[in-house]
């Protein structure tokens, strides 16, 4: 195995020393291109799409809308894919998206213990920790321990519901609207909605955090 890869540090690489993995990936792309299976420009476009267009801002806009529009929230909880596609805000959302609502009584958290299932269209590509063993192993058994790793503490009697994404359903957590945001616009509310708050490993920002 190549040992060039490090999850937690982003360093500049000397491009004259290509790692084994880089060489093998490049070779496979050359083979698939020469066979006419893929156009490298189309691969460029996929990469660009996930780097610039599809990310947690999509999900945040949906959450902010649900916070301000009770009819939309009801539609979202009934059929998230249908409700989001009816907005026409962004590229079509795939089927089987399920929105789950946090309440003072219940906190939802999403995991994929078997691989890395994640609502790409709403949140972009999943972060490394979501796909890694510590989260996948512990979320279903010790979610409060996991939340502590994120600096989140819930009340002792809050029910925790963990959704293990074992099929092609996808889950989006609808976090609770922070206090002190009465009258805020959707755009301003969306700034409070973090990626982790839509996975259930975090909470939305407080209004004071936004000013900082």
């Amino acid at each position, binding site marked *: 195995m190549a040992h060039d890869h490090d999850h937690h540090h982003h360093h500049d690489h000397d491009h004259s020393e290509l790692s084994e993995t880089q060489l093998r*990936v490049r070779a*496979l792309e050359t083979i698939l291109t020469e066979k006419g299976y893929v156009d490298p420009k189309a*691969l460029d476009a996929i990469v660009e799409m996930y*780097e610039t267009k599809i990310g947690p801002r999509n999900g945040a806009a949906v959450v902010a809308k649900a916070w301000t529009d009770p009819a939309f929230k009801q539609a979202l909880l009934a059929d998230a894919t249908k409700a989001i596609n009816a907005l026409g805000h962004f590229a079509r959302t795939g089927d*089987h998206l399920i929105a789950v609502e946090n309440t003072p009584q219940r906190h939802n958290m999403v995991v994929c*213990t078997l691989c890395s299932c994640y609502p790409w269209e709403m949140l*972009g590509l999943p972060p*490394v920790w979501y796909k890694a063993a510590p989260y996948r192993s512990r979320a279903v058994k010790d979610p409060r321990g996991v939340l502590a790793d994120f600096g989140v503490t819930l009340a002792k009697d809050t029910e925790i*519901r963990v959704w293990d994404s074992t099929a092609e359903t996808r889950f989006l957590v609808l976090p609770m609207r922070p206090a002190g945001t009465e009258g805020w616009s959707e755009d301003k509310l969306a700034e409070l909605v973090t990626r982790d708050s839509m996975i259930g490993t975090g909470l939305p920002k407080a209004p004071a955090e936004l000013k900082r």
Partner: protein
Amino acid sequence: MNGVHDMGGMDGFGKVEPEANEPTFHERWEGRVMAMVRAMGANGGVNIDSQRFARESLPPEVYLASSYYQKWFLAIENQLVEHKMVGADEVEAGHSLHTSPPLLRGPFTLDDVKRCATRGSFAREPQSPAAFKPGDKVRARNINPVTHTRLPRYVRGHVGTVERINGCHVFPDSNAHGKGDHPQWLYTVVFDAHELWGDDADPTLKVSIDAFEPYLERL
């Protein structure tokens, strides 16, 4: 298969370590791997279930030591060779050396990228009425196939409650092995943590999985 990928409830992997301002890709090759897998999947070279099985089938020590996109790369390379779309000699040479079968939906070009942005639908026409309804008590079957399954070990043999019916979907256990969609009803089944983890369980915790009908038996 009972592989190391089935991690729910395992101990000893340590703390979750979120990275502040994590980039979409840490290295350029990761994006190329993601894009190749998406492209080959979109045009019918591989499918999502067969790719998952290919990742699960990596030797455990490789699975655990490899980064996410390294696993994706090793799995797609293995599978393309296995399906004779790419020759082992071509991998060695780093070039195409002979002709290969065409992709089901032809070459992946710029025109296909937009379609790639949205997940396809996995819903299929039901072959029979749903056997369970919300509120039914069910036991997750104690199955241990050496082939692909999406029933995690930590729920097998345990009793839960059907919470919702999610429609009738492609059955991964079949689709992963080129045996067709074999559509099955899909249910959200919720378990009390005590049922899964015993007396030490967090009393406030409930865990759900999405389970295909063949994974469940009526109590």
